[in-house]
């Protein structure tokens, strides 16, 4: 094999390695920010607060709203975009480790600063109120004035626990 062919192969592999670095760096940065209790999408966008998520957002997933099934019933370890950690038998809340896992997962379904641009808020919102055309879990929120929907929106806008 001519030496120039080998050189080209090596050059190509090096360029591929470098092409992957920005993505790996971004993932590392995001993981680092999330494990420290905050998640952000891009510079200037609000930071998602872990404590707010744990105390205000997570309970919404377990809440029984009249005439509706709970979010958790369908999204427990489910094959959906929203996949919540399975509660320990007999437990009514998630452990710290499970909440961290939920936070990482749910953070991937929102665009910080943009509630209606976030699947988490748009999908269960009634189509008549600006939501997606169909959610197999139904119209969990009839309007954007629903207190639970507003709580989710506050989290996406970066509100922190007071």
């Amino acid at each position, binding site marked *: 094999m001519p030496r120039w062919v080998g050189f080209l192969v090596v050059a190509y592999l090096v360029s591929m390695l470098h092409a992957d670095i920005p993505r790996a760096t971004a993932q590392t940065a995001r993981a680092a920010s999330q494990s420290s209790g905050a998640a952000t999408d891009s510079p200037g966008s609000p930071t998602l607060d872990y404590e707010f998520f744990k105390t205000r957002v997570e309970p919404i997933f377990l809440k029984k709203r009249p*005439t*509706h*099934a709970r979010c958790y019933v*369908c999204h427990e370890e489910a094959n959906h975009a929203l996949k919540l950690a399975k509660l320990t038998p007999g437990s009514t809340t998630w452990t710290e480790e499970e909440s961290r896992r939920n936070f990482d997962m749910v953070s991937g379904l929102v665009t910080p600063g943009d509630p209606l641009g976030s699947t988490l808020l748009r999908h269960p919102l009634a189509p*008549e109120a600006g939501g997606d*055309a*169909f959610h197999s879990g139904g119209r969990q929120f009839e309007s954007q004035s629903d207190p639970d929907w507003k709580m989710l929106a506050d989290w996406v806008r970066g509100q922190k626990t007071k």
Partner: protein
Amino acid sequence: MTWNTRALPFGILPILCFLLAQTVAAGTSRIYVTNSAGDSVTVVDPVTNKVVQIIAGIEVPHGVNFSRDGKQVYISNETDSVLDVVDQRSGKIINKVHLSGHPNNSAVTKDGREVLVCIAAAPGALDVVDTTSMEVVKTVPVKGPLHNVYVTPDGKFAVAGSVAAKRLTVIDLKTMESVCDVSFDGGVRPMTFDTNADGSTRRIFVQLSNLHGFAVVDFAKHQEVSRVMLPEGKYGKEEWRLGTPSHGIAVAPDGKTLWVNSILANAVFEYSLPDLKLLGHAALPEVKRQGKPASGAVPEWITFTPDNKTVYVSNSAARSVSAIDTQTLKEIASIPVGEVPKRINTLVLP
């Protein structure tokens, strides 16, 4: 003007007969609707097309069936993995049968002795519930998680479908053993059957994932023989339902027509039997959206009144059930029900 008093009773007679027939019809059938994203089952009187009962306290109900005498309603409960037994008259839960795993749809044998419940949790099975002892007496192993199960019109077999395993399984109801499988290139969704002159099963019509139509299976040969494609439509993408373009299929009680839901066309199509010629379609309601074009109703299931006159379609995105006149193919009533109505079934009271 004078009344002919002797003729009066004869003039009134047809009216009285009509009213009596209406009263009898009102008392003889009910449409049950499981609200799959809710916690209830809605019951509709097909004469008035009004809700007459709500069975509460069943979070994520799936299948609904009835005892032979119509006194009990069986509802598979996905949240608690039980079969809820409900008193038909009061609508109250009177028993809970614990199943071997997370259930989906169910069926009842012709003699009413067993309820068959699909177990959707891996590896999949068919639970057999004895309706006298009200306990699971057998769990039939199958090759994949089960979604829907049916009893063939002659009552001899159960046919269960698996979305994940892309196959249907035929189970002999005498031995409660699997006798054959038929594999497909897509997940097995709803099914229905037509019959030979002697009442035996002739064909299975099978809806599949990613197929806007249905497969035709020769029951004796246990193999697919053809496919029928539905007319196209503009819906489905916004509703995230392109992978399930057609859901809900049923043969009318008189056996003369086949009805097939289309999510893409937002309609229910009518075909003649046995030749499978397209006869027409009924449009289903649209869902209004804020700031966007209207979307489809996402039809899920079909049932009929026993007299063939009305077909009912559950509209999962529209939170309603459409009552459609089978002659005019027009919606005669849109009945508001609960969250994401899916399975619907007709109870004929003795």
